[in-house]
């Protein structure tokens, strides 16, 4: 299909590992830095995607389609997580009129 993609092994797998490490830490930074729940959820999505990228890289370089099936399952779980998370978020907004995570300290005990 794509001629120039036929042998993809000229990019070493280490580069993909570093890229997904950097993307994962950007997601960690987002969770730590922001107070908006929506942006924290998006940072979690970013972390999941970094993991997906690493899965695909290893699946490609070890020549094993099981890694790609795992990515498929991670996507399914992420979709379910976002659905429930956003429902909880709208509920929180309805009660507190805010999406600020610092209002939710009551669970701290």
């Amino acid at each position, binding site marked *: 299909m794509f001629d120039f993609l036929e042998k993809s092994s000229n990019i070493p797998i280490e580069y993909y590992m570093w890229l997904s490490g950097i993307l994962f830490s950007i997601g960690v930074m987002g969770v730590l*830095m922001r107070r908006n729940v929506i942006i924290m959820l*998006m940072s979690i*999505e970013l972390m999941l995607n970094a993991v*997906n990228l690493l899965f695909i890289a290893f699946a490609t370089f070890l*020549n094993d389609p099981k890694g790609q*099936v795992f990515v498929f399952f991670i996507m399914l779980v992420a979709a379910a997580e976002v659905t*429930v998370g*956003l429902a909880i978020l709208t509920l929180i907004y309805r009660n507190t009129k805010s999406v*600020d995570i610092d209002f939710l300290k009551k669970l701290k005990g």
Partner: protein
Amino acid sequence: MQAALFYGLSIVAIMCACGVVVSRNPIHSVLFLILTFFSISGHYILMNAQFIALVNIIVYAGAIMVLFLFVVMLLNLNKESEPHKSDLVKIIAATSAGLFSLVLVGVLKGATLPAYEGMMDSENGLVKNLGRVLFQEFLLPFELSSILFLSAMVGAVLLGKKNVQA
């Protein structure tokens, strides 16, 4: 050609990921995240995982991000009303994330990898092969994920209802 594509897509992905975290308007964050997903899909195509690339665009950029956009617009959050954390907390967060990435990259740099064959099967990521693996070895998790989806859907509807009669 391939190296250029790799570097370009990586730079776009990292820049847009930073944009997600830094931008003040949630709508801009959502749009940056969609761009990040597209560049990650480009990486998937580069690695001959065409099916996963398409699913990534359809599920993430299509469904999940539209959900996010709906919530942002429904709650009328597309303004910069969010109170921000203090600068000290931001600096601490950025430092710890940077140290984390340093540790991650350092560890991965020192890892010994199994030797892989130079030439890979370019048919690996096509629907035919993936479907065979999915419905032979991973049939039980596949069916279980449908139960997960059902419960997530019921939970979301139940949470979203205005008044739940007990």
